[in-house]
């Protein structure tokens, strides 16, 4: 399921004409929706956020210079989602602190603590939804959308080193949640 992005054949564009907003951005609608859906955890909020993001992206399109339309769009989606989360104050904001304090000395959880091949998709989803937004975000961008550390850093507006430590921490917490949900352990046992 990892998608390495949508490849747009260059022949799709008329010669000598710059690609339109629709040609460049619409192929990334699913990526945009997926990120919003994971961040906001609600299908209607996700649609509202993606619509707002497309409007913002359209208005800012003349400033789009990069080659990576997907990362650019996802950055806007992310910002819209965070505004929404902040307004609704549903999220704890402790993650940045953890990155700073423990990022460099973090010892990753042993992935063998979970029998991964037995984990059902629905359980994985429930565990992921329990993580703070900043953790859901890096997992969704890296594991589902297949973004590189560098691309995740661009979208989430954090340094690459933070992407690495946050991703490790997020996957560790996901494991903890999975073990808790299956009743096989508490966070202390990891």
């Amino acid at each position, binding site marked *: 399921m990892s998608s390495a992005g949508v490849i747009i054949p260059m022949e799709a564009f008329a010669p000598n004409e710059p690609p339109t907003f629709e040609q460049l951005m619409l192929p990334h*609608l699913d990526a945009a929706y997926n990120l919003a859906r994971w961040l906001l955890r609600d299908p209607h909020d996700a649609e509202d956020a993606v619509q707002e993001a*497309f409007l913002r992206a359209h208005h800012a399109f003349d400033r789009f210079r990069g080659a990576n339309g997907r990362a650019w769009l996802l950055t806007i989606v992310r910002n819209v989602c965070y505004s929404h989360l902040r307004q609704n104050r549903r999220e704890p904001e402790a993650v940045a602190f953890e990155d700073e304090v423990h990022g460099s000395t973090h010892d990753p959880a042993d992935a063998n603590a979970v029998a991964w091949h037995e984990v059902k998709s629905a359980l994985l*989803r429930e565990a992921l939804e329990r993580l703070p937004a900043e953790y859901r975000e890096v997992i*969704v961008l890296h594991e589902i959308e297949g973004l590189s550390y560098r691309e995740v850093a661009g979208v989430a507006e954090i*340094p690459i080193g933070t992407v690495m430590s946050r991703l490790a921490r997020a*996957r560790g917490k996901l494991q903890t949640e999975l073990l808790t949900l299956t009743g096989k352990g508490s966070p202390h046992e990891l």
Partner: protein
Amino acid sequence: MNCNDTRLLLEAYSDGELDLVRQLELEAHLRACPACALRAKGLATRREVLRDSVPRFAAPPQFREKIQALVRAEAAPATAAGARRPAISWPSFWNFGGAAASLAFVLFIGYTWGNTRARTNAWLDEAVSDHVRSLQAGHLMDVASTDRHTVKPWFAGKLDFSPPVFDLADAGFPLAGGRLERIDGTAAAALVFHRRLHAINLFVWPAADGSVPTHRGAENGFNAESWSQGGLNFLAVSEIPATELDQFAAEYRNRAN
């Protein structure tokens, strides 16, 4: 490479994000160390399962059509837009009244600045607008840290110059963080300092396209002070009293010397 080094690098390795040299070193260690090899295998399995089993939500077909219509309506010529624009229900949770008020406020400040100052000071308008926006949008910082050794490297790779970063906590202006802005069409660093409950935005950008004059101004409760130093332009904007902003600017100039 020992087991400790390996553990820290294993996740990046399983993500395929290690540089070649470290990857080869790590693989040599894995061949010699069964414990680390077992860890690596666990990570690889986890990664595989995460990639395959975390659901990816696809945009519902009706929503796709709506966005497509929206994009096409936006792309249509202005004259036709009114007639062809489909009925769009604006999301309820985006407080458009608030956004409009903010925009009006920013425009108002920009306008008054523009009228009282020379038209050429477009960057001043921008900086004041940025300052106001940073307070209202809750987007004061991209990197939140009181440590200049964290803030300064954060800008590396994002800007083609290196802004001098100092923590003026001992002078009563603790460093709070930084973010990226655009001033006068170029990328600028915005350093954020605190003064009691107020924020000071210090914009820094290269003076390549012209140095800003040394200037002090006050409009609508916002004070601004600009100077040019070491090939960089500096502009501090805040709602704190002019005397305090002046003190801040003087401290900063001294340390940057």
